[in-house]
């Protein structure tokens, strides 16, 4: 650098630093002015207005501020980052204002619509259209008011920020005084109208003064919208984390300690946050300056660090000393209970925050917004998590320590990271070294062959002058391509490369000599010389002008590809001939290339599949008439050159690299390889797509290349497989690196061989019937009968036999073993027929439709049977859930404050949807809908599961066996009329989408179909995540856990999916579900991390079971054990074969975390198994079929049969084993209906147990007292003297009426599963009926309703 330049640079640095200081000081002053005058504003408001008015106004302003923060969409920092350098500042500002204002208006409208739900006290805000409109406009304007700080900072006019903020603060004080007669609206208008008034002058200044001047004096870069969107999106996520941290902490303090402690925390953090804001202001100023001058960022950062330290550290030290005094200004109580220590710790945490804040500002400047998200994410988890865990033991001080330690550790880590980023530097160094080594090695090789090349060039052109500069064009391990001036020199350095070059020369000579090609011959290089020097083979070719087609723009490239196909077709057509495919052709097209491929060591595990591919191709080709001719053999787009013609049109100037050419190759090969190379996919994916949908391949060839295949009589699959085999063989022969590159082999050879060997229309593997060409119609008919007619007939027979057998069932004869006790031989025969047909189909044909039909019939057997056999809706909880729908239809709304079951109102998705469906089908009760829900949910789950499991396996046998096992093993019965069933279906669809669209390549989606576009899949993902989050509580947790598990194992990119899952779940929980979350927070915290407490309840109940129910319980556990063992075997067998499925294993294990973290009592065990069972079933299916082609298919068939035989009785016992108590009679329903219709609102209903049709009508109007749920002492008291104890209960005069309801199913339930002794309900009923104190008010065969006898 010259001295003059150096001096200029130093001067510019000083100017920048000065600008930085000025901006930072102005922004800090803005913070001080806003905070200080804001304090006076609220003091004045408290003196001038009623406390109630101030409370409502502050709540309204708080709501508006919250909505504004959500509506800025990450543009506050985005504007500061991108404005300094963009050439389109005006447009950027206008668009940012517009988008954010619209988002603000939208947020305000949503707020107004849901106001009764989340801010009942603010009903006045939507009382009139004018009020609502003003609130919407004020929110939109406030968003712009917030953003204009960033605009001025980004435009380097931050000095105006304290000025207009000061003006605004004074104006709002004046307005506050002037508007005292208007109550709440006076305060709100005084806050918002001055802000609206400030917008006009500030933005006039920006658009009329600053921007025109800036346009005249500066040249800026063009803004890429994508950069801004990406930056803003990530920064927005980070801001949501920060908002979550600051907003959730008071709630945690409230739930774990007290309201006073929460207030102390709020005040302490507000004081300390002023120090945080100082760092944030300096960071903003740095961001603006460094974005303007990125090269001077390090200097500016040091300057910013110095300034922030000078501002924050002394202020923090003073704050630590005077903390008790500061708190005492708010009241004596605030400095007690650890308040002063808390404030000291939080203030002290502002010192490490200097490091964090400025590091993040620097990260924003560099565009490393991932770091920003990560730091805020870690802060949220660490601060909330540690506070959560320790606040109960250490009190409020624990929160202070959480802040200080988290900030300190993060600061230390970031400081170390900034000094040496080992991984990045190391990686960069390694890449650089590798690149340099390659360049050096190629240069050395070029240097070594220079003399030989010169010799060859002289042979080609004796007049050539020696010493012409040689330039390396390309190289691989064994070939150098050199620019020799007006010719191209190719140098082969090993035998394979020599063969390839010789073939290239031979092909080109053949083409040059072939007069049938006419003028087209000019499109191919001429061989000028061929020369052997030592062990090197050198050819010299004429050079063709033009640009490689793969470097053209998208449209030009598309057009060029069609022209390349046309040129190749000309060559093909000119040289075509027909041959009958005999031994020689089979040897050349299939046997030889396949033999070479099978010698690769990494492919030994698919040798059987490769052999099958060979047999299959041979069977398809032999005896066929083939159209053959001159083929290029490697017509990918980089081997074609294009140029502009004299008429300015694109034309193909040449096609080079004829090393894989053949004079009598199959002509379809060129078309397929060209198409594959343009598809943008891996070869393996592209070939598999053809196998999956062969006819689509012909359509695509016509659409993309404008050609039809010459061998139309050959199936597209066969032609595509031959092209694949040809290409793989060429790659392995020419470049030894490909043979060692395991990933390439896995993706392009193993994937195709495996998929081809397991297609629905499979390759012959010794046991497959396939209608090969040449098969007679009679043989085809026999094959159809074997593969389709027999299973279809067997399935139909099974369904009919099951139906007939069910007619004979007497439900009343059911004993304690449940439904299995009344099933008969007909059922066993029907099921055996279905199972045999399934096993047959699995091994004989593998049509997905046929296999799917078996699963549908199986589900139908299970679910239609109880729906038809039982009098009424099965299962007490299903009745209870219909009660929520009944409430909704009666009231026309949900109520999150309802006393009984508010959780259903806070997550109302399922109930609201069911209500809509119920009324839409013309019913007023959801009971009918609920009766058929298990069937519908199971079928929907099958459809979703098929999509999900298809991402794991292309093997139809594994896929459908997994589905079969899933149906037989899913005994936990979560498919009844309940939110979790629907949530589970949505969860499966979501996982299928995530695995397909967000995979990292680690989970190879084996389905070769085209992928869902990323944007579309993300929209779908968001919709599904929101639906899950709004309808259930555990499913969203499982959604987060599964996505996180897939992310931790690096199966998918989790950023988007996990963010959406967390934001929707937390967002719903803390808005609509807020009341429930706050009310139950302490219970959740108490049970968090204590798996034994949550599961022991379920396990302990087994102590009360009778013998039959013990066996029922044991059957369920046996299924779990069998599935886990089978799944383990599957995992081990896959691992032994080098195919460990990390995604399936992660999803199998993830539900285990539920047991530890959720407090849903013993229920969680069932839920965990429910979420694990699809993946256990898949692993178990892989235990049966570990290889793509099973050589032990007879044993596999036997294994499926044995497994089915073991699972079915266990399933029927476990799933239907409690049906004696879960099925209810019409008489029971009639009695309960009578009671609910006649009992006055507020009545108490004493019941034997919770088992029965209950809470389905006016559910919220009664108090329920199930005797079985009372404490042991109370239960004993009831049993000891029912008339005395229950007489007391029924005499309660504090409620309008008290009823005793005893039913048949309550008695069965208590007899079967306790917790009272067998016969307890009957004993109570007998004693009560014998006593004159009671009278029966309703009675039928199965139920009785009793009241205390009226005194006469």
């Amino acid at each position: 650098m010259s001295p003059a330049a150096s001096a200029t640079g130093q001067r510019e640095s000083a100017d920048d630093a000065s600008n930085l200081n000025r901006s930072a000081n102005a922004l800090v002053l803005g913070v001080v002015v806003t905070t200080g005058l804001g304090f006076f504003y609220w003091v004045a408001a408290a003196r001038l207005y009623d406390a109630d008015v101030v409370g409502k106004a502050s709540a309204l302003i708080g709501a508006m501020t919250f909505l504004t923060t959500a509506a800025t969409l990450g543009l506050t920092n985005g504007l500061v980052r991108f404005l300094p350098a963009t050439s389109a500042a005006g447009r950027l500002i206008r668009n940012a204002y517009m988008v954010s204002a619209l988002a603000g208006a939208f947020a305000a409208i949503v707020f107004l619509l849901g106001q009764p739900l989340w801010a009942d006290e603010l009903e006045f805000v939507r009382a009139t259209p004018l009020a609502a409109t003003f609130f919407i406009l004020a929110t939109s304007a406030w968003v712009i008011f917030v953003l204009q700080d960033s605009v001025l900072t980004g435009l380097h006019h931050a000095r105006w920020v304290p000025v207009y903020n000061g003006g605004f603060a004074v104006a709002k004080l004046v307005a506050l005084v002037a508007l005292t007669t208007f109550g709440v609206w006076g305060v709100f208008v005084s806050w918002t109208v001055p802000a609206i008034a400030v917008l006009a002058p500030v933005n006039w200044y920006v658009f009329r003064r600053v921007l025109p001047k800036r346009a005249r004096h500066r040249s800026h870069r063009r803004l890429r919208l994508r950069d801004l969107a990406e930056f803003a999106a990530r920064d927005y996520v980070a801001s949501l984390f920060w908002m979550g941290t600051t907003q959730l902490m008071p709630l945690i303090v409230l739930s774990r300690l007290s309201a006073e402690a929460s207030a102390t925390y709020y005040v302490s953090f507000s004081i300390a946050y002023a120090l945080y804001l100082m760092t944030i202001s300096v960071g903003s100023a740095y961001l603006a300056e460094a974005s303007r001058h990125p090269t001077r960022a390090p200097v500016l950062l040091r300057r910013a660090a110095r300034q922030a330290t000078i501002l924050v550290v002394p202020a923090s030290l003073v704050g630590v000393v005077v903390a008790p005094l500061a708190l005492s200004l708010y009241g004596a109580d605030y400095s007690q209970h650890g308040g002063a220590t808390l404030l000291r710790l939080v203030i002290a945490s502002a010192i490490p925050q200097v490091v964090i804040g400025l590091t993040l500002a620097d990260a924003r400047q560099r565009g490393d917004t991932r770091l920003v998200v990560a730091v805020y994410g870690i802060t949220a988890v660490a601060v909330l998590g540690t506070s959560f865990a320790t606040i109960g033991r250490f009190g409020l001080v624990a929160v202070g320590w959480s802040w200080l330690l988290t900030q300190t550790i993060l600061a230390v880590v970031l400081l170390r990271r900034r000094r040496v980023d080992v991984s990045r530097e190391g990686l960069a160094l390694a890449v650089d070294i590798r690149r340099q080594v390659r360049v050096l090695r190629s240069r050395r090789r070029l240097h070594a062959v220079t003399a030989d090349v010169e010799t060859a060039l002289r042979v080609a052109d004796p007049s050539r002058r020696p010493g012409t500069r040689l330039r390396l064009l390309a190289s691989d391990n064994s070939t150098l391509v050199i620019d020799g001036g007006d010719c191209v020199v190719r140098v082969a350095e090993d035998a394979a490369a020599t063969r390839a070059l010789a073939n290239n020369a031979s092909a080109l000579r053949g083409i040059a000599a072939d007069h049938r090609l006419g003028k087209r011959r000019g499109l191919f290089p001429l061989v000028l010389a061929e020369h052997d020097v030592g062990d090197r083979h050198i050819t010299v070719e004429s050079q063709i002008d033009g640009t490689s087609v793969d470097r053209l723009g998208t449209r030009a490239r598309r057009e060029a590809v069609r022209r390349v196909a046309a040129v190749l077709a000309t060559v093909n057509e000119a040289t075509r001939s027909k041959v009958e495919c005999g031994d020689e052709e089979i040897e050349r097209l299939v046997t030889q290339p396949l033999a070479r491929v099978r010698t690769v060591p990494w492919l030994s595990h698919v040798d059987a599949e490769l052999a099958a591919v060979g047999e299959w191709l041979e069977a398809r080709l032999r005896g066929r008439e083939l159209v053959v001719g001159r083929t290029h053999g490697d017509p990918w787009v980089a081997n074609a050159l294009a140029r502009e013609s004299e008429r300015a049109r694109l034309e193909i100037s040449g096609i080079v690299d004829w090393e894989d050419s053949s004079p009598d190759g199959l002509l379809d090969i060129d078309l397929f390889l060209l198409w594959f190379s343009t598809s943008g996919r891996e070869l393996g994916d592209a070939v598999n797509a053809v196998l999956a949908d062969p006819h689509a391949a012909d359509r695509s060839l016509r659409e993309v290349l404008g050609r039809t295949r010459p061998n139309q009589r050959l199936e597209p699959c066969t032609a595509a497989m031959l092209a694949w085999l040809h290409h793989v063989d060429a790659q392995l022969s020419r470049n030894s690196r490909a043979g060692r590159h395991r990933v390439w082999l896995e993706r392009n050879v193993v994937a195709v061989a495996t998929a081809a060997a397991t297609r629905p229309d499979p390759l012959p593997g010794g046991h497959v019937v396939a209608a090969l060409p040449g098969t007679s119609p009679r043989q085809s008919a026999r094959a159809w009968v074997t593969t389709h007619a027999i299973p279809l007939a067997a399935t139909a027979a099974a369904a009919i036999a099951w139906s007939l057998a069910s007619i004979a069932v007497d439900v009343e004869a059911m004993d304690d073993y449940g439904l299995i006790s009344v099933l008969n031989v007909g059922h066993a025969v029907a099921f055996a027929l279905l199972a045999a047909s399934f096993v047959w189909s699995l091994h004989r044909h593998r049509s997905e439709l046929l296999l799917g039909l078996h699963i549908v019939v199986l589900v139908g057997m299970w679910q239609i049977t109880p729906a038809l056999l039982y009098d009424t809706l099965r299962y007490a909880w299903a009745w209870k859930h219909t009660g929520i729908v009944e409430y909704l239809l009666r009231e026309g709304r949900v109520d999150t404050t309802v006393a009984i079951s508010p959780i259903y109102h806070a997550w109302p998705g399922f109930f609201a949807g069911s209500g809509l469906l119920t009324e839409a089908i013309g019913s007023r009760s959801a009971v009918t809908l609920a009766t058929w829900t298990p069937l519908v949910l199971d079928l929907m789950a099958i459809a979703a599961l098929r999509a999900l499991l298809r991402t794991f396996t292309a093997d139809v046998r594994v896929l459908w066996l997994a589905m079969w096992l899933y149906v037989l093993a899913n005994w936990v019965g979560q498919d009844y009329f309940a939110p979790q069933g629907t949530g589970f279906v949505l969860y499966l669809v979501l996982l299928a989408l995530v695995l397909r669209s967000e995979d990292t390549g680690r989970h190879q989606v084996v389905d070769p179909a085209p992928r869902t576009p990323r944007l579309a899949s993300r929209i779908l993902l968001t919709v599904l995540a929101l639906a899950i989050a709004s309808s259930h509580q555990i499913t969203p947790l499982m959604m987060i856990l599964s996505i996180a598990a897939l992310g931790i194992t690096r199966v998918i990119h989790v950023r988007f999916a996990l963010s959406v899952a967390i934001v929707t779940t937390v967002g719903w929980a803390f808005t609509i579900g807020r009341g429930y979350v706050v009310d139950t927070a302490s219970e959740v915290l108490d049970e968090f991390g204590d798996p034994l407490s949550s599961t022991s309840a379920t396990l302990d109940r087994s102590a009360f079971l009778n013998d039959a129910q013990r066996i029922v319980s044991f059957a369920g556990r046996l299924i779990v054990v069998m599935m886990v063992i089978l799944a383990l075997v599957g995992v081990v067998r896959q691992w032994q074969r080098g195919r460990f499925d990390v995604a399936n294993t992660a999803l199998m294990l993830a539900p285990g975390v539920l047991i530890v973290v959720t407090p849903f009592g013993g229920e969680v065990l069932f839920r965990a198994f429910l979420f694990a069972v699809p993946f256990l079933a898949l692993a178990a299916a892989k235990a049966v079929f570990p290889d793509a082609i099973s050589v032990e298919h007879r044993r596999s068939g036997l294994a499926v049969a044995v497994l089915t035989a073991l699972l079915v009785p266990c399933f029927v016992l476990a799933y239907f084993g409690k049906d004696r108590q879960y099925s209810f009679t019409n008489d029971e329903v009639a009695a309960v209906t009578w009671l609910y219709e006649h009992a006055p609102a507020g009545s108490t209903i004493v019941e034997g147990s919770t088992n029965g049709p209950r809470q389905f009508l006016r559910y919220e109007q009664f108090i329920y007292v199930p005797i079985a749920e009372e404490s042991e002492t109370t239960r004993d008291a009831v049993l000891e003297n029912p008339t005395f104890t229950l007489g007391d209960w029924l005499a309660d005069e504090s409620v309008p009426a008290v009823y005793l309801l005893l039913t048949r199913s309550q008695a069965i339930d208590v007899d079967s599963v306790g917790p009272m002794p067998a016969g307890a309900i009957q004993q109570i009923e007998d004693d009560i009926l014998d006593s004159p104190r009671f009278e029966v008010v309703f009675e039928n065969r199965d139920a009785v309703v009793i009241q205390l006898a009226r005194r006469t």
Partner: protein
Amino acid sequence: MKGIRDDGVTAVIVGWTVVTVITVVAGAPGWLRVPTVVPFVLVVVGLGWAITLTGERALVLAVAIGLSVSSTMFVAEAMALTGLWSPRFGIVLLAVVALAGAGVQRARAPGRR
């Protein structure tokens, strides 16, 4: 989408949607409503969108179910939370969603400009 005739699917969606809206709005008897409304709410609402957005045959049915169920829940939730409960209006809203999906799917079908 490969393997499914786009015109046929569009016709099915539009036809089914129109019949569903008519049966619900006109207050047809329950036996007529069940076979039209249930498949509509569970599959048809999201079918057009599923075909347009996924492009994957394996996913279409699953995504159609997911979108239909989600849409039904969103519409019903919004009505329940705001106290503006009206099943007829809800079905009409779902019909708009279904027809929009069919329209987009039709517009993006190969060969159309």
